């Protein structure tokens, strides 16, 4: 099915558990099939599918956030971090920290980060998908980015904001 992996990737992060995420994607694809005659040819079919996904999600009511599947992945990775494996396997620890921090955000913040940063939608497309004014999307994604940074700090601050970058920026300006 077209775009089902992308839809499931996002659904796993907003639905209550893996089964609910699969049900949400299933409902999305069936609605798309039933309403294909409403799709405007030449417009972005991916954005249309994500709009259906979020409409279905909101219609269900926002259930419990963090997926047990995601949570179990996080627990394993965070255990590794607490055992002091961070320096031995920095990419894995970093991934766990980023993934865990994302799950701590509100549904609204997580949604704009998933759509804008992970799935690559523009602010205008996100406004369409989430039925929001573009100004709201802009302020929401700014706050979401800030919230994610706060949750990652200070554990990953050395990874995400290396001194070398600051020095490089300063050299560029001078």
């Amino acid at each position, binding site marked *: *099915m077209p775009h*089902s*992996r992308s*839809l*499931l*990737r996002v659904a*796993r*992060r907003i639905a209550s558990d893996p089964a609910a995420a*699969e049900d949400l*994607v*299933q409902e999305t*694809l*069936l609605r798309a*099939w*039933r309403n*294909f005659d409403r799709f405007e*040819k*030449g*417009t*972005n*079919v*991916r954005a249309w599918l994500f709009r259906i996904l979020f409409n279905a999600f909101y219609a269900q009511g926002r259930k419990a956030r963090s997926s047990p599947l995601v949570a179990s992945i996080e627990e394993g990775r965070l255990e590794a971090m607490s055992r002091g494996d961070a320096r031995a396997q920095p990419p894995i620890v*970093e*991934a766990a920290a*980023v*993934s865990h921090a*994302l799950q701590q955000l509100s549904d609204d913040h997580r949604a704009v*980060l*998933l759509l*804008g*940063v*992970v799935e*690559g*939608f*523009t*602010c*205008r497309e996100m406004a369409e998908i989430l039925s929001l004014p573009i100004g709201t*999307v*802009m302020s929401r*994604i*700014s706050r979401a*980015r800030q919230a*994610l*940074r706060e949750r*990652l700090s200070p554990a990953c601050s050395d*990874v*995400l*904001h290396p001194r070398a*970058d*600051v020095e490089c*920026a*300063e050299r*560029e*300006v001078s």
Partner: protein
Amino acid sequence: MNCHERAELTPLYLSGELEEERAAAFGAHLKSCAECIGELQHQARLDARLHDVLLAEDVNATKVDQRVREMIASRAASQPAYRDESRRWILATAGIAAAFALLVLAGHRFLLGKQVAQVYADAARDDQMEVVQLQPRHWYSDPAQISVLAQKVGVPQSALQALQRGPYRLERAKICFLDKHLFLHVVFSDGQRDLSMFLRQRDAMSVQGSADEMMNGKLVQTADIGGEHVALFETPQLIVMVATTQSSDAASHLVAFAASKL
């Protein structure tokens, strides 16, 4: 532009949606503000991390796909309304495909209307203004920032990497609008001259040119517009365009190289 305005516009800047005038003001502010450059680099780095982490997750939609296929088949078989709907859908799809095949057989040059040629004209204009005339634009040369821009138009990092394994060097990149669609405008150098390449995720946009030929297994469509040689081909994932005033051979060489790598 001050730091507060820069912060407000950052979402549009990072998604490549800022209009040229405001993008120029944004860029000018960055050049004069080390704090904002550091902030933006930090943000771009965090975005790239989040993107990479989630895309590296194992997501298997096979089970859902199978369930949906079975449900559609079941509904189509058991309910007259669905059966009719399904039949209409299949007939409509088959009809569109047949019509498209006939049009292709009739020759792309007969399709060349104002609308379908626009993307070529826009690519030619961008190359002329931004690469030939070197009009001031905010370009990115940092690979990490280019990678973030590429994500915005659905171009995978692997595609950019593949294009750099050859005689061309990736010089700089920016986001642009061609026929109302966002493209990544990448400038490659062969050591003597700069050539424009435009990339975006493949979708339903119409891209017919005036002539076509096969290169490395890809159907390449071309158009000559006001001294600019424009060539385009598609892969299952991407739309790839090349524009240059150098020569049609230079355009063909870059297209053939890209077609062999993507």
